[in-house]
């Protein structure tokens, strides 16, 4: 018989997780209860209080295991498409407001995992941003894991990764390898730069220069407070003044660092590096 977990337990565990990570659990008690019970069974804890104590003590990295239970680890093209809409509808318009035609527009995807995100950004820009031909758009994907970077450079994907893409987009930007495998066309693969970068290491991050927009989704939640703050400061330094950072939908930069301003657009909430004040 599975252990008992009720709505009050969900509230407790939700408060704990928010304080600890800034992460907000979904408002579906049944969904939370199922996953809490899964973790209790995996850790052989017999009561909720016993499990909560284990979580609070972070015994055997239980916080990470718990977060993983709520995180979709697989990624796919056009995931969180609303942020891509925000990119072309609002963010880039501000970024190019003071740039001359032909100037660089730099976009960074970290962590880029196996490349779905930077390629999604590229395809989205090519298909929906009329100004794409007027600027030198540079997209960099970075990850700490060199194995996923190899896969990103190879640009080869299965059906599931392509599930959100319109057929016309697949036809334009992929070549068919077999009935289960597609590869990003060479032109697109060659237009994305990839780098092995640890976001907590300031010297590695500085090597990449400054960006107009950074996509940093579902990464900071895995860090402890100290690392999260260092990462936030490195990301701040990596943005041009007035540049934007997009986080995952359960993440909040306001809980991590006071350096950024929240900007609410029709499609997404993003964080902006303020323009630099006079240097006094």
């Amino acid at each position, binding site marked *: 018989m599975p252990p008992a977990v009720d709505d009050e337990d969900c509230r407790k565990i939700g408060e*704990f997780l928010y304080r600890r990570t800034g992460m907000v659990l979904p408002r579906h008690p049944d969904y939370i209860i199922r996953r809490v019970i899964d973790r209790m069974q995996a850790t052989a804890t017999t009561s909720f209080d016993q499990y909560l104590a284990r979580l609070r003590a972070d015994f055997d990295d239980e916080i990470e295991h718990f977060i993983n239970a709520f995180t979709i680890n697989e990624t796919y093209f056009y995931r969180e498409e609303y942020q891509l809409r925000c990119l072309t509808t609002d963010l880039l318009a501000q970024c190019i407001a003071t740039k001359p035609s032909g100037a660089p527009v730099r976009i960074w995807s970290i962590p880029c995992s196996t490349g779905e995100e930077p390629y999604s950004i590229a395809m989205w820009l090519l298909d929906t941003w009329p100004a*794409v031909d007027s600027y030198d758009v540079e997209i960099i994907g970075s990850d700490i894991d060199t194995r996923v970077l190899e896969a990103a450079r190879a640009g080869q994907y299965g059906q599931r990764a392509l599930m959100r893409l319109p057929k016309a987009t697949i036809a334009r930007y992929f070549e068919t390898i077999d009935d289960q495998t597609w590869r990003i066309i060479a032109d697109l693969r060659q237009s994305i730069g990839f780098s092995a970068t640890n976001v907590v290491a300031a010297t590695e991050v500085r090597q990449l220069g400054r960006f107009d927009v950074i996509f940093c989704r579902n990464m900071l939640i895995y860090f402890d407070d100290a690392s999260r703050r260092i990462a936030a400061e490195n990301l701040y330094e990596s943005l041009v003044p007035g540049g934007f950072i997009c986080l995952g939908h359960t993440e909040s930069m306001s809980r991590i660092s006071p350096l950024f301003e929240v900007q609410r657009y029709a499609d997404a909430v993003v964080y902006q590096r303020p323009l630099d004040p006079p240097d006094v």
Partner: protein
Amino acid sequence: MPLVRKASQVAPPAGSPDRADALRALGSGPASARWSAARALADFVDTAPELGRALAAETDQRVRAAIFTSLIHFGDAASVQAVVPYLGAPDANLRSGALDALRAMPAAMGAYLAGLLRDPDPNVRLLACELTLEVPSPATAMLLAEVLEHDPSVNVCAAALDALGEIGGPDVLPAMACCAERFADQPFIRFSVDTVRTRIERSH
């Protein structure tokens, strides 16, 4: 394809200042130099006292954040000592920065909780009640029980009750009853005591 790959255009990064240069810049440079100095000093764990002292004069929020981050990165007793004086700062930004920094150093901060809960400033005691949540244990709960029995501030006691709702056990029920009696003319304390007692009784 209009997208380009020109990573080689990126200018090489400037080197980080060394310890002496960073300490000098932290105290007298422009904000951008103070920011870089505060970040560079994260590599020098013995600079917690200097970083703490710099907070007193620092008015740039960005630099303050970087100083707090370096201290959190150290996460030792010297860093806690450097931050604690700002828990009672009149500047709300500095005060909340100190609170967040202490929250992020639970291992070193725990040893200072008893003293913070007896600080002469009720605002410090109130924030100390919030900090107890970062080091939940029966011993921490008993520190909050002492607050309920002796602290003259009703707001501090309310904050202690809130914290006990998270980390309290049956051992603190007598202190909660004592608190309800001491503030019998404050209905919200009675309400809070009843709520927390129900929560504790349900979960133990």
